[in-house]
C-alpha cells in the first residue's frame, strides 16, 4: 500500500529492517534509537536493546532524549553500572550489533564526532567519541544511519573517532579485530554496503523517487554503485504508523517535561 512518507521516515524504517529478532543491539542515540525501537515494535519483538547507560533489554514507550532517560531503566530487564556495561557486555563480546550515527563519515565508514579542523585548534569542537570507539571494534557488526549530505559524507576526515574499515581491505584484521565492522550505512536517499574486497561503501539500494544524481550531489566523494541495485521497499502502513506514533508520543513527553 503506497502512502506519503518523508525521506527521514524512509531512512528510519530501512534502518529498522536491518535488525533481526535475535539481535542484541547496542543502541546509539538519535536516529539509531528510533530505528531500533521501530524494529522492536514491528518485526523484531524479542530483540534485546542495550543503551550505554547500563540498561539491558529495555523497551521504552517513548524515545529517550539522552542515553540515560528514566524510561530506559524503568522498562529494562535489568540495569548495570557503566563499568560493567563496557567491560562484561560490550568488551565481553556479547553484543551482536552496534547501531551508530555520526557527524561525518568517509568512504570506508570511519566516523568523526570529535573535531572539524586540527585537534589542538579546532574549527568546530564536536562532542567526542563517547562509546563509539569500542562499540565499533567490539560489536559483531555495525550499522550506521545518517542523512546523506555533503557536510556529513566527506572525502577526508579530520579525525577518526571510531574506525570502520580504516584504509579499506583487510585493515581491521591487520589490527587484530575479529569483528565485521560496518556492514550497512542507511541514509535518507539510499543504502550503502561495503564492497566485499575493497570495503569501500557502495550503493546497493535506492529509495523510491531518488535519482543517482541526487545521491552523487549529496555525497562528498565519487559514489560507487553496485552492479545490481534494488529499489528499497517503501514503508508499509504498519511501519509508518508505528514510527509516527512513537515520534508523537516522544514529542509530547519531551515538551511536557
Amino acid at each position, binding site marked *: 500500500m503506497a502512502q506519503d512518507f518523508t525521506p527521514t521516515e524512509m531512512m528510519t524504517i530501512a534502518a529498522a529492517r536491518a535488525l533481526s529478532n535475535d539481535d542484541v543491539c547496542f543502541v546509539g542515540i538519535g536516529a539509531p534509537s528510533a530505528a531500533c525501537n521501530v524494529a522492536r515494535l514491528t518485526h523484531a519483538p524479542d530483540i534485546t536493546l542495550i543503551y550505554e547507560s547500563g540498561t539491558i533489554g529495555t523497551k521504552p514507550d517513548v524515545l529517550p*532524549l539522552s542515553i540515560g532517560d528514566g524510561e530506559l*531503566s524503568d522498562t529494562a530487564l535489568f540495569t548495570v553500572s*557503566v563499568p560493567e556495561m*563496557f567491560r562484561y557486555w560490550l568488551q565481553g563480546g556479547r553484543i551482536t550489533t552496534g547501531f551508530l550515527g555520526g557527524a561525518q563519515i568517509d568512504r570506508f565508514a570511519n566516523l568523526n564526532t570529535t573535531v572539524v579542523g586540527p585537534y589542538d585548534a579546532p574549527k568546530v569542537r564536536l562532542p567526542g567519541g563517547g562509546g563509539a570507539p569500542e562499540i565499533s571494534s567490539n560489536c559483531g557488526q555495525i550499522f550506521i544511519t545518517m542523512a546523506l549530505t555533503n557536510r556529513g559524507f566527506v572525502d577526508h576526515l579530520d579525525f577518526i573517532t571510531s574506525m570502520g574499515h580504516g584504509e579499506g581491505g583487510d585493515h*581491521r584484521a591487520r589490527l587484530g579485530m575479529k569483528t565485521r565492522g560496518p556492514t550497512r550505512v542507511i541514509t535518507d536517499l539510499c543504502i550503502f554496503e561495503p564492497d566485499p574486497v575493497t570495503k569501500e561503501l557502495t550503493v546497493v539500494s535506492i529509495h523510491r523517487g531518488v535519482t543517482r544524481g541526487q545521491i552523487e550531489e549529496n555525497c562528498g566523494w565519487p559514489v560507487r554503485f553496485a552492479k545490481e541495485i534494488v529499489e528499497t521497499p517503501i514503508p508499509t502502513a504498519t511501519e509508518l504508523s508505528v514510527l509516527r506514533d512513537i515520534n508523537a508520543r516522544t514529542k509530547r513527553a519531551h515538551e511536557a517535561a
Partner: protein
Amino acid sequence: MAKICTLAEAIGDNVRDGDTLAMEGFTHLIPYAAGHEIIRQGRKDLFLVRMTPDLIYDQLIGVGAARGMKFSWGGNPGVGSLHRFRDAVENQWPRPLEIEEHSHAAMANAYEAGAANLPFAVLRGYIGADLAKVNPNIRSVTCPFTGEVLAAVPAIRPDVSIIHAQRADRQGNVLIEGISGVQKEAVLAATRSIVTVEEIVDELNPPSPNAVVLPRWAISAVVHVPGGAFPSYAHGYYPRSNAFYIAWDKIARDRDSFTAWIRENVLAGKPEDFARHAVRRAANAA
C-alpha cells in the same frame, strides 16, 4: 565517616581550589545543586573529571572555575553542543581549558581501576582510533601470558567526588537505584566524597540484598538536598526535565544570556531552591 551537614559546609570542607573534582551521574542523578554551590563559593582552577560533562560542567566552565577537563563525551544529550565548553576550547573564553579526552570505555575502566586502588586500567580499546595519537595518557601494556598488546589508561583518583543519590539513613549509608553509572566507582576512587540525597530516612531498607549501597565509612559528607539533581532526575522521585535541556541550548549559546542566567539562578540562589523542582516534577510524574 560520613558527616551529615549543610551543602555549604560540605563544599566548604571538601572542595578546594585546584582540586581534581569528579561530579558523576550518567544522565541520571547529576549533582546540580552541589555544582551551583561550588560556583557560589567561588572555587577556581578546578580540574574537572566526568564522562559526560553535561550542563553541570558547561556551567562550571562558563564561569571560569575550571583549568582543565578529562571527559569522553561533551555534548547536550539529544540536543547538540555544550556552548560554554565549545567557547572555551575554540575561543579560550573565559579562559583556556586543557582537555584530556578518552572514550567512555576508557573512562569507565579508569574509574574502576581507581576504586580498585590500581594505578592503571587495561582495556581492549582505541583500536584504529585517532584519540590515541593526541592523548599521551593512552598507552599500552603487553599480556605476560599471551603477548597480546592492550590499551592502558591511568586510574582516575579525584581529590573529591560528588554524586547525588535517592536516600541516606541517619548514619550516612546511601542507596542508589536505577541507572547507577560510575558513581560508586567515583566515590571509592576519591580521597574525599560528598553525596547529596533526596531523602534522609530512619531505615535504608534496600529493596534487594544486592542493591547499590555506599556505606557511611566510604563517604565524607551527606547532605539533604531534595530536587538536587534537577534538571537531571532521580529514579522514583522525579523525571528528567528534557524541556530544560532543550532550553539550555539557547541560554548557553550566548555569553551574556549565560552570565545573566548564572547570576539569577546560581549566584542569587540557594540549595533549598531545588526542592521546588522535586515537588513540581513529582506531581507531574504522578
